[in-house]
């Protein structure tokens, strides 16, 4: 049988028997309901039954039905407000502009006074309306049961008065003795809060503020301090860049401000307009690497030398002095030479970025950009970015002097858990004279502190954020504080002796610092609050390049350490990385939406694990779920293995953000388990990071791997709901490859030709389409005369970065339940939209395509014809409707769906208590996040994407009311589905296909447009746009040869 060109997992590529078996069955048959339920601790739902039970249930059922028919329904109350606030219309959402705790400007949707969903602020140049998954999910943290509910003294709850008094007394004593006071925080990007901190500390003889970031970019700031005298990251303008070279920098997924970068990056990725060229050199496969035109796997210990080589090649081409005695290093296709050539050709419109927290690498990268004249165009150091302001060295000095500190106040940070010096903090905090945590949720550090004075969630807070030199935004409360908490800034203000509220402090601060245009401040304030953002004028041309040559040379020397052209077999570089869904774990670890969001690359949920490169899997025979012992620098960790294609040889990786025992019950569920006396998975990786050359390094070398006899199941969703059908070859001939009917891609050089492969392919396709017929003419109205809307969606595979923001947006909008890892392992995930990640080519360095897949709303829907009760039927607007109350749960529809997008409610995931995990849906508080306009589905019914019909209906109604006509249709672009709204790059376009001028109908007529499995003739309402990679024919040829080589390599290893 032919191997698929595009595959979602090695199982599919290697055609493992387990996979073939699974692909045959729509629903898992190996785990029966009885078995699944008898494993659970609670016996009340035990379904193992016999005839007597059946009769009992039958008898009860009949009598219950009879009784139900006689009894009056329950009395329901309707309780209006006493004084209805003017701006609240029950049943209509209110929107407020605010900013997340990570500094992203958002619009908050509130219903009857409770925030239920976030959307990026479209007025902000940072988000342009998009929002990352992690920020989308932050609304759920507001309703977290694990939040601190009152101030704590030790482990006991206390009241504010007592706590304030005791702390004030202690602070006064410290002040009198001239003691040391330290505030340790995460990045504080609120100017007013920073002012409060500074003022507070100024009251002490020896007061200092230290900030750090768990996953630090302090080297980037430091390098720019050395080069420009500005200790901050520059603002990046990917939209100006025609050539981009990245070194282990996941700027589309998890680096600094991915939403902003992704939107900018996609400006120049239009095959019919401007097409930039992107090289990526990286050790782990990232979303950014997946989107790159040419990607080169590279070991972390080789990266420094690769950057130096690039420097020298660029310098040589520009006739500038090169760095001496750099070991030669080359990658496939002479990638570094090509990159240098393209960079020089696009000098001033190119960009080199590096994500490694190494001062040397960052300095040299800054020097390359300076050489190429990129500062001022693609980089802006005059309006720097303040996303991460942490300083690793300052954290180290604090850790060193911690014993002599009299008072430590920890704000927005958890140093005992997520810093390289965790053990020092854990050891010394209990011995301090005064230790206070201002955390909003219990954590490892606050457990050690004498007092915990809980902060508000940001949705309950006032505040301001400065993201960039020329971008500020405001934070405003959208709900009354749920618990007895107090905003940290207010707390510090109080301890400084002020009686002012933080709200009035903030207003005064803004009046003094930002209100420059004259007029009425109230108007300015209200208008800024309404818009949420404030954009001061750009500053220009103050910072100048000042890096001395000897500094560059010394930076370069440090980068050569540990380099060897050919790494030793069996010795690995171990990388600690951020997952796109969990990032540093600070706000995400206890968030079930994020834990259940499959990682964009590995497609695993609820765990961390050890990713190993494909070649090591072949060599060692290690498979997914095998538990190994990883030994490095005196540490040993037991981890399940996940084979990751595309990962550089001799590299291993473990994600940070896991292993917290104090973050809450959801976080604890993702902490692996103890097997054979060893903690497997869920290990906290932060303690393994070390400070090197003034910055925390997130990789160690010399790691070794030993196989154990243990096995640990990772919740890997990559081949769930596979569109692949192993039997289809029998029907369509041995050469038929269904995967080519799912993904279509082209290369740019060929795409532009009028007689290339792509043009020929299009002609053949057009010819083929003529032979497709339909039996259901009634579903197709003439768009010209139709009085109906026909909703359609176009998804541009070129623009999709696989970031997963759509998944969480859909979950928040549509009340999609969280089911827990155990259910995932039985293939019962519930997400309405899944991001299929396809690989193709050489497994050592595959090409990657992300494909968002949701209900395709087929006009010839196979699901509709098989439903025995007409629970799923077609609407006049082209929507494949699902009437939950009609569904009797035959699941025929899911069996008949070629796209595998229907989800069955096996249980009442919303109230089945501990069966599947104690998630937010099981608490009164957590349920407040649900969208009241969407039904919560019951056990036994099928569900799937509805095209966010509640949003469509709302927009239609608005249009009808505005026009006073039933014929009125919403304006194109005004109707957005949740996934579309959230997409940072605008990859999803939605609208009325019957309107010939709508964006979506234009895209459907575009030559790149295609539908998945077109030959099945389902006529989906979701179309996809062909992926185009900016490769020359020659490079395509090289990739093709690599693929052929990989095929024989695969075949070889299959036989052994």
């Amino acid at each position, binding site marked *: 049988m032919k191997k698929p060109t595009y595959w979602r997992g090695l199982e599919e590529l290697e055609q493992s028997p387990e996979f073939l078996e699974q692909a045959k069955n729509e629903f898992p048959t190996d785990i029966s309901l009885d078995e699944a339920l008898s494993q659970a601790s609670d016996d009340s739902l035990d379904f193992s039954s016999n005839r007597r039970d059946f009769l009992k249930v039958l008898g009860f059922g009949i009598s219950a039905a009879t009784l*139900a*028919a006689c009894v009056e329904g329950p009395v329901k109350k309707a309780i209006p407000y006493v004084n209805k606030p003017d701006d609240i219309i029950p049943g209509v959402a209110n929107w407020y502009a605010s900013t997340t705790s990570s500094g992203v400007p958002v619009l908050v949707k509130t219903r009857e006074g409770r925030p239920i969903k976030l959307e990026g602020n479209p007025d902000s140049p940072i988000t342009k309306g998009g929002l990352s998954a992690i920020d989308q999910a932050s609304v759920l943290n507001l309703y977290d049961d694990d939040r601190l509910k009152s101030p704590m003294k030790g482990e006991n709850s206390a009241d504010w008065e007592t706590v304030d008094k005791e702390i004030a007394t202690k602070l006064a004593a410290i002040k009198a003795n001239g003691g040391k006071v330290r505030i340790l925080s995460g990045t504080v990007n609120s100017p007013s809060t920073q002012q409060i901190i500074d003022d507070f500390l100024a009251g002490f003889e020896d007061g200092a503020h230290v900030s750090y970031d768990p996953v630090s970019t302090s080297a980037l700031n430091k390098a720019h301090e050395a080069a420009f005298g500005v200790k901050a990251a520059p603002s990046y303008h990917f939209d100006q860049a025609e050539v981009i070279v990245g070194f282990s920098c996941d700027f589309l997924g998890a680096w600094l401000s991915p939403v902003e970068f992704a939107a900018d990056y996609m400006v120049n990725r239009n095959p019919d307009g401007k097409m930039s060229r992107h090289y990526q050199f990286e050790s782990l496969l990232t979303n950014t690497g997946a989107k790159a035109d040419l990607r080169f796997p590279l070991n972390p210990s080789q990266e420094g030398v690769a950057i130096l080589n690039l420097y020298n090649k660029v310098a040589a081409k520009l006739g500038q002095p090169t760095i001496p005695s750099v070991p030669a290093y080359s990658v496939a296709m002479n990638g570094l030479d090509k990159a240098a050539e393209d960079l020089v050709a696009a000098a001033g419109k190119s960009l080199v970025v590096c994500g490694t927290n190494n001062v040397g690498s960052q300095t040299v990268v800054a020097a390359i950009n300076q050489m190429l004249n990129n500062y001022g165009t693609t980089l802006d150091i005059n309006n720097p970015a303040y996303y991460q302001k942490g300083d690793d060295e300052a954290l180290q000095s604090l850790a060193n002097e911690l014993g002599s500190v009299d008072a430590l106040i920890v704000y927005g940070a958890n140093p005992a858990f997520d810093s390289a010096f965790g053990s020092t903090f854990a050891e010394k905090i209990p011995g301090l004279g005064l230790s206070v945590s201002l955390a909003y949720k219990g954590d490892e550090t606050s457990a050690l502190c004498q007092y915990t004075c809980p902060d508000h969630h940001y949705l309950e807070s006032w505040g301001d954020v400065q993201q960039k030199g020329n971008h500020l935004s405001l934070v405003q409360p959208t709900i009354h504080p749920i618990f007895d908490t107090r905003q940290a800034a207010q707390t510090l203000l109080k301890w400084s002796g002020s009686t002012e509220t933080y709200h009035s402090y903030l207003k005064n601060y803004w009046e003094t610092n930002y209100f420059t245009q004259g007029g009425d401040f109230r108007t300015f304030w209200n208008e800024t609050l309404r818009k949420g953002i404030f954009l001061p004028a750009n500053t220009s041309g103050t910072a100048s390049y000042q890096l001395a040559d000897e500094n560059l040379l010394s930076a370069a020397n440090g980068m050569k350490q540990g380099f060897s052209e050919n790494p030793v077999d069996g010795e690995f570089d171990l990388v600690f990385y951020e997952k796109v869904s969990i990032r540093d774990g600070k706000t995400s670890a206890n968030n079930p939406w994020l834990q259940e969001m499959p990682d964009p690359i590995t497609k695993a949920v609820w765990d961390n694990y050890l990713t190993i490169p494909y070649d090591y899997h072949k060599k060692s025979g290690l498979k997914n779920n095998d538990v190994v012992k990883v030994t490095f620098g005196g540490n040993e960790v037991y981890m399940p293995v996940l084979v990751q294609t595309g990962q550089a040889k001799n590299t291993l990786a473990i994600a940070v953000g896991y292993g917290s025992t104090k973050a809450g019950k959801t976080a604890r569920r993702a902490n692996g388990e103890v097997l054979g006396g060893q903690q497997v998975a869920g290990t906290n990786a932060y303690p393994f990071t070390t400070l090197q050359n003034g910055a925390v390094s997130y990789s160690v070398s010399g790691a070794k791997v030993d196989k154990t006899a243990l096995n640990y199941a990772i919740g890997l969703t990559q081949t769930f709901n596979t569109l692949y059908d192993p039997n289809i070859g029998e029907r369509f001939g041995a050469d038929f490859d269904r995967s080519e009917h799912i993904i279509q891609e082209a290369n740019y050089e060929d795409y532009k030709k009028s007689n290339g492969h792509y043009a020929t392919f299009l002609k053949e396709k057009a010819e083929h389409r003529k032979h497709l017929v339909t039996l259901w003419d009634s579903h197709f109205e003439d768009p010209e005369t139709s009085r109906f809307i026909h909703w359609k969606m176009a998804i541009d595979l070129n623009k999709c970065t696989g970031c997963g923001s759509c998944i969480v947006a859909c979950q928040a909008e549509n009340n999609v339940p969280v089911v827990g890892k155990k259910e995932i392992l039985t293939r019962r995930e519930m997400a309405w939209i899944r991001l299929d990640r396809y690989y193709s080519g050489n497994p050592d360095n595959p090409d990657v395509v992300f494909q968002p897949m949701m209900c395709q709303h087929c006009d010839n829907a196979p699901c509709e014809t098989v439903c025995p009760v007409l629970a799923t039927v077609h609407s006049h607007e082209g929507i494949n409707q*699902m009437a939950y109350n009609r569904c009797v749960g035959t699941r025929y529809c899911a069996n008949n769906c070629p796209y595998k997008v229907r989800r069955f409610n096996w249980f009442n995931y919303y109230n089945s208590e501990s069966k599947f995990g104690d998630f937010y849906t099981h608490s009164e508080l957590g349920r407040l996040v649900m969208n009241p306009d969407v039904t919560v589905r019951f056990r036994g019914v099928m569900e799937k994407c509805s095209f966010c019909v509640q949003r469509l209906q709302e927009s239609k109604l608005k249009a009808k009311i505005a026009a*006073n006509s039933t014929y009125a249709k919403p304006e194109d672009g005004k109707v957005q589905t949740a996934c579309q709204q959230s997409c940072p790059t605008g990859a999803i376009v939605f609208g009325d296909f019957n309107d010939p001028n709508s964006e979506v109908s234009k895209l459907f007529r575009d030559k790149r447009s295609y539908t998945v499995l077109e030959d099945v003739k389902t006529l989906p309402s979701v179309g996809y746009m062909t992926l185009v990679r900016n490769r020359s024919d020659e490079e395509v040829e090289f990739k093709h040869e690599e693929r052929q080589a990989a095929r024989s390599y695969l075949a070889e290893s299959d036989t052994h």
Partner: protein
Amino acid sequence: MIYTASRYILIPLYLVSFLFLGTSVLQAQEADLKEGETIFKQRCSSCHRVEGTLIGPQLLGVSAKYASDREWLYNWVRNSPALIQSGDEKAVALYEQYNKQLMSPHPDLEDQQIENILAWVEESVVVTKQPVTPEGGQPVISPSIYYAVLGLVGLLVLISLLLIVITAFLVTAVQSKEQQEEVTIADVWARTKMILGNKFVITAIAAIALMGGTVKFVTDARAIGLHQGYMPEQPIKFSHKLHAGTHQIQCEYCHSGVTKSKNAWIPSVNVCMNCHKYIEQGPQYGKDEIAKVRAAYDNNEPIEWVRIHNLPDHAYFNHAQHVVVGGQQCQTCHGPVEEMEVVYQYTTLGMGWCIECHRETKVKDLGKETDFTVEDMGGLDCMRCHY
């Protein structure tokens, strides 16, 4: 001389101005009337009725009464307390006449808007005098009628049984006479059993019972979850008949969500207090019931009304859609609320009832009926109401 001369000049002037006023009223655009109606409902209807005194005087005829005194009227509407304070005779007299109740000022109303209100008031008399006919409303079947029917059936059964016994007695009596025997109860009983044991009778009774049972079962089963006629007791004896009927307060005045939201909503207490700040006593229940409203307001405790119209959670219904876009009267679904002392559920609110209306009702475009029914516009799609 001057006086008479001026009169001769002024009379035609008056006439002309009256003509202008008259024509301007005639020419008043629909939109102006609409605006007038909106403002009336929003601001005036809590204290004024078109006809009859509420807190303030009736508004019908005000336009004519102050025809020559427009400026004074405008000033009064915009800020009557100031006018009274200034000692204006007419103003003070009015104030005294209506129990010294101050009329709240409306400084933002423009002359034209006040004219619109007055114009609408005059126009509306024609409209409001028409009886409100609920569209598609059905008479309520009250439970007592049902039991009466049941009792009647029972009575008929008893009578027929009695007739059978009498027949049996007569037949037995005739036979006894012929055979010259005594009539015994045993004989009568045996005869009765014989008649009842007749196969035809058994089949007939069984068939009737079965049919009746089936009909009853099907209708009952279809009515599960439907609560037509549901009339719960409310915490406050609020009379819609008094408010909406006698006083003709517009529905939207209290249920103001009906044009904006999916919920028509029960008014918040502060809306009640707009009037009940002044009105302490009602004609029917005296002071007690109104005291409850005031207590709720003073103690900041919401009133827990019992919800009458309950839709299941999986059904989405939007009032604004039906009232604004569809132009439906409240009475279409809620019945003659203005005649209800205690409100009850007038229609079934079942899906069949919704569908029926969607099949028949023509949709509107710019307020005018079109040729298409709701069904033609996709109004029977599942996902119009279920999502």
